[in-house]
């Protein structure tokens, strides 16, 4: 079985699939692994694991801060790959999507990164600053190793792009709920339903929605429309505020899964 198949299976068995995001290395290496383990144990269907970058231009203040702290703590791409191995060794079987910006991956070497990520037990990649137009090489490498390469769509994507992006995205397509950066919003966009319908009209593949989702009510509303729900900043905030971070993460995931 290829790594990507596990993602496909997850969408077949869990509707909607709940996918939290957490920054590897935040607030420190060990705690971030404990948080991911707690999320998995509390019922997360997949996990998005953030690779820190110094200049995360698609991220809002919460995730920016988490990546800065992780970098100050010595987090590197190599340690992120090691983290995936360690998490797999601890018995977690849910799909892992590594989410990171393109420059650190270029510095690591794309071919080497894809190979090491697959070997460590990752199932796919999400690169927010790499639209399909620039991703030819990485796409071929991921196909070789059986990793998903998940592309994003935005509410302002026009029909031709929706067709192209859904055709080339593998595993699922990541719908950004609003034009903007990551971070909690008080309300869901009214236009989300229409956006999802426009994408469904041209693609049968799974769609997960992220950016701006922070409450169980919002998660439930999105879950009724999409195949997957992604929550990042709200989890990071919940963990931030707590003394016992893994327990806070578990409580957060459980509340979202209800």
């Amino acid at each position, binding site marked *: 079985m290829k790594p990507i198949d596990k993602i496909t299976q997850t969408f077949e068995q869990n509707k909607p699939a709940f996918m939290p995001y957490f920054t590897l290395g935040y607030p420190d290496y060990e705690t971030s692994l404990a948080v991911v383990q707690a999320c998995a144990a509390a019922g997360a269907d997949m996990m998005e694991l953030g690779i820190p970058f110094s200049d995360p231009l698609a991220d*809002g203040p919460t995730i920016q801060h988490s990546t800065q702290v992780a970098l100050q703590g010595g987090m590197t791409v190599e340690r992120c790959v090691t983290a995936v191995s360690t998490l797999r060794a601890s018995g977690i079987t849910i799909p892992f999507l590594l989410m990171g910006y*393109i420059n*650190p991956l*270029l510095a690591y070497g794309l071919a080497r990164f894809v190979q090491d990520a697959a070997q460590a037990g990752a199932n796919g990649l999400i690169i927010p600053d790499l639209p399909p137009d620039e991703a030819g090489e990485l796409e071929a490498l991921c196909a070789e190793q059986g990793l998903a390469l998940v592309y994003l769509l935005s509410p*302002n*994507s026009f029909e031709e792009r929706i067709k192209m992006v859904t055709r080339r995205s593998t595993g699922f397509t990541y719908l950004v709920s609003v*034009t903007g950066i990551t971070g909690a919003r008080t309300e869901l966009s009214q236009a989300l339903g229409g956006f999802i319908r426009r994408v469904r009209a041209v693609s049968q593949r799974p769609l997960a929605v992220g950016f701006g989702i922070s409450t169980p009510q919002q998660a439930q509303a999105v879950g009724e429309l999409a195949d997957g729900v992604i929550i990042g900043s709200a989890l990071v905030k919940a963990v931030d505020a707590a003394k016992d971070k893994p327990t806070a993460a578990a409580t957060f995931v459980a509340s979202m899964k209800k």
Partner: protein
Amino acid sequence: MTTQPLPKKFGPYGGQFVPETLMPALAELEAAYLQARSDPAFQAELDNLLQTYVGRPTPLTFARRLTEKLGGAQIYLKREDLAHSGAHKINNALGQALLAKRMGKRRIIAETGAGQHGVATATACALLGLECVVYMGTVDMARQAPNVFRMRLLGTEVRGVESGSKTLKDAINEAIRDWVTNVGDTYYLLGSALGPHPYPTMVRDFQSVIGRETRQQILDAAGSLPDSIVACVGGGSNAIGIFHEFVGDEGVDLIGVEAGGEGIASGKHAARFADPQIGRPGVLHGCYTYVMQDADGQIALTHSISAGLDYAAVGPEHTHLRELERAYYTSATDEEALAAFQTLCELEGIIPALESAHAVAEAIKRAPTLPKEQILIVNLSGRGDKDLDTVISVIA
């Protein structure tokens, strides 16, 4: 009307490494730019403003005393410091602001390092009646305080950026985040020949008026083309603006000068091409080019006495010209730039911007090694009033 899409890359460099949300916006921008570029009415409006508002053509000044002192090539200065608002930045800011207006965008955002692009954008927006927000790192706000005040006088909101190194790189991050969020009604007026396509091409086109004027002026003054052209390179818009016209003239040496900071060996500089350990191909702010970074691909902190050159990436066309060996890149240290700053003040009665002083520093090194009949042109990209505090604190 020609609306052939523009090439997205210069050799392998450039491209569009941006969040998906910006892809439709970049496509809209490129289409609008292509239309405007081939519309004689747009060109006429821009040309008229460049002449009657900016004061173009800017003069080409023979630097007689500097030439005599150095005893080599004849040095001419292309006087972008005399353009309205004090630097070449206005050429691009006006061009793009007119384009924004044509696209029906009422809100303009921009980033600024030294503040020159911010002032130019604030100026263009005041002239054309557009709302303007400028992002600026708080470190830069402190060292370029007069420009912050100028922007505010011109009706612009200056938003301080506290993230990262609090300089130009972080201001661009924040401007891009604003653009992603307000993409429907907002125009991002990028100030240098970098970022995602079509910016490097569009900014070069708006700045290439510098080179076109220079060609005519040096032919009128000396009867021949120059042998060398020297310009400072931060993002690289003044340099590409003067180089572009001469790329096809193989007898004209094109020399870009990066910020050498405290010296290349110190590691505290912004010379992307100088140290292959730190400056390597990578992606920053939407384009693939030379980027200063650590072994893990994290963007490196840069250092320069000049805020306008203090940036981790270089425009992709410069990387391409360097690889083709059509242009040559070197660096000048803070100390060399300061010495050149003083020399130009004393010998020519011109106070250059610290950015431009880097190009003057290279001219001071190079001219004495060249025969007297040769011509060397320095692009004096901006004036130095904004830098007086910095200079006073170092040399007084």
